[in-house]
């Protein structure tokens, strides 16, 4: 099976310059694999500062990694020839979080559909192009006569986000990165939009990378999940195992903080987990050791010496925590490839 999109041990640092050698490490050695023949939905979950948005931009080729590579069909994005670059651009698309900011206020919303139609030459004639636009809007649950010809501020957030889904349908890429696609949308519409995203995979064979901080929707929608903490992968594996039986202390903390819509269950239900210090102090950069050590209730001396590698505790799960050092070590690339196959 060909690998469609791959992040090979990528890192990205911000803020280094001649005068400032140490910047912030937004993404720290993350590997991710998406294969061609197996359309899948992969979730990348984390809080703010986890690096998930930076990872998304790296995968989209919008920024360059400081180390490691992003490969499209086996070829690195850096130094790609024009034709491959165009193909990559066409096949890897995105839906962003903010349904207002995604639109240029000077133009009608049509532009967001007609521009790529034109640039990627998706239609042979104006009529065909228009038909495609209309069809994709309908598939996204919108009525063309109510949406086309309007300015962004004349439509609701939900409608705007659905137009973005229509755009994805129109372009029919191989991969879509959805960066928090429903967090700014009303609750009653969320399920509908998420459903249309899952349909993209089911009916068009498009793989999705679903980036979110909401573990519940990640569970609903994806097959595998990467839990990021301050740029590193804390836990990765099948969404069933990682969320229902979390192993990494951070994952457990995340799951236990989910406000479950059940008045009789206190938060995530994990009473055992009490956290030492209240928040990640992002100003303190741990020189070595596990990044979660200063907040971890299970911290051990070795946690301060070196960052733990990924231990493969199950066939389809790996945890970066010394609590599981009895399991075999696995590289990020290996587990990523295994999950994607």
């Amino acid at each position: 099976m060909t690998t469609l999109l791959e992040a090979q041990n990528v890192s990205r640092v911000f803020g280094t310059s001649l005068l400032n050698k140490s910047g912030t490490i937004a993404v720290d050695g993350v590997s991710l694999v998406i294969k061609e023949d197996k359309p899948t939905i992969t979730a990348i979950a984390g809080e703010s500062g986890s690096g998930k948005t930076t990872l998304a931009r790296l995968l989209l080729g919008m920024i360059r990694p400081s180390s490691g590579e992003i490969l499209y069909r086996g070829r690195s994005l850096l130094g790609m020839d024009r034709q491959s670059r165009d193909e990559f651009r066409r096949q890897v698309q995105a839906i962003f979080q903010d349904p207002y900011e995604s639109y240029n206020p000077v133009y009608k919303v049509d532009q967001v559909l007609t521009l790529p139609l034109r640039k990627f030459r998706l239609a042979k004639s104006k009529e065909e192009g228009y038909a495609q636009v209309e069809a994709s809007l309908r598939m996204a649950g919108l009525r063309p006569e109510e949406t086309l010809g309007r300015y962004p501020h004349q439509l609701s957030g939900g409608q705007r986000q659905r137009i973005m889904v229509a755009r994805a349908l129109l372009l029919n890429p191989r991969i879509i990165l959805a960066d928090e696609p429903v967090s700014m949308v009303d609750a009653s519409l969320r399920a509908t939009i998420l459903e249309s995203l899952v349909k993209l995979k089911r009916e068009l064979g498009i793989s999705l990378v679903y980036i979110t901080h909401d573990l519940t929707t990640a569970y609903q929608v994806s097959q595998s999940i990467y839990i990021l903490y301050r740029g590193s992968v804390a836990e990765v594996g099948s969404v069933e195992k990682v969320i229902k039986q979390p192993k990494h202390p951070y994952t457990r903390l995340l799951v236990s903080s989910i406000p479950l819509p059940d008045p009789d269950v206190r938060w995530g239900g994990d009473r055992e987990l009490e956290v030492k210090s209240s928040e990640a102090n992002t100003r303190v950069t741990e020189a070595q050791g596990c990044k979660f050590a200063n907040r971890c209730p299970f911290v051990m001396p070795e946690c301060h010496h070196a960052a733990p590698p990924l231990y493969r505790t199950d066939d389809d799960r790996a945890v970066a925590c010394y609590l599981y050092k009895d399991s075999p070590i696995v590289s990020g690339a290996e587990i990523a490839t295994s999950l994607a196959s």
Partner: protein
Amino acid sequence: MTSNPVKDRAPHVLVVRDLTVSYRTAAGPVRAVNGVSFALRPGERLGLVGESGSGKTTTALSLMRLLQESAVIEGGQVLLDGVDLLGLSREEMRQARFAQISLIPQGAMNSLNPMMKIGEQLRDTILAHSAGSVSKTDIYARIQKALESVELRGSVANSFPHELSGGMKQRVCIAMGILLNPKVIIADEPTSALDVVVQRQVMETLRRVQESLGAAVILVGHDMGLMAQFADRIGVMYGGKLSELSPVRGIFRDPLHPYTQLLIKSLPNLEMKENFRGIPGLTPSLLKPPPGCMFHPRCPQAMARCSTDIPTLVEMKPDQWVSCLLYDKGQS
């Protein structure tokens, strides 16, 4: 069965009667809040839930009389311990704010003055609401006590906002909200900008603080999970009206209004994957509202009369109020 959830039981700290608020827009008047009534007991936690355009934020801000210029409070009463806040003069209202009823606004972290130390901002709040003069030691003591109650170190008073994390800033805003021991605290989506772990901690802090103060809280938001964890009662707003007002268990176990039912069903859960049950249709236009019931165009249980008659809030079960013609056999 009365059609007003405000019974004359003595110890209500806040009574809202028939609150109606409109906005003047270029396209015409928009009624954002349409005859909302509810009552709050001391120490009670009420969750005001709704989507965008439901009127929940406008309702909350009206209680504080902190609406924009274009908003007009057309009618109703807001009785805080028997005193109608809507009838107070501007100066009297200013005194009442923070002292009797306080607000933790949305994005509160961004409403802190970046140029002033935290302690100074807290001090200003105290001074702005003290009739007489307050001694320096007294101010200092109150600031320390407030910071302690939100689990912040006293040294935070000497910090600037940018030196604090998001959760800490939010807690400072909570501290400011309780500084003068108000009877009612309105929290308008206080955790929307926070991560889930911090959110839990901030909400637990808020809960501890209001319990020790004995203050009532109105939590405005759209996160039903958060409401389940925090609120005693929940008011569901739709199209500017209260469609259901019930204890929290009633809302989740036995929702009466079709909108609430659909809302509960649409909540993503960890039990079933790919469980997508959204509510079809669009939120109603407040400029040209649908005739009859605001929800009827999207309601799976709509009847013929739903497009002509307007339902009112009726107590279906003890303390469970719903505004739906399905339950309103007696009304014309």
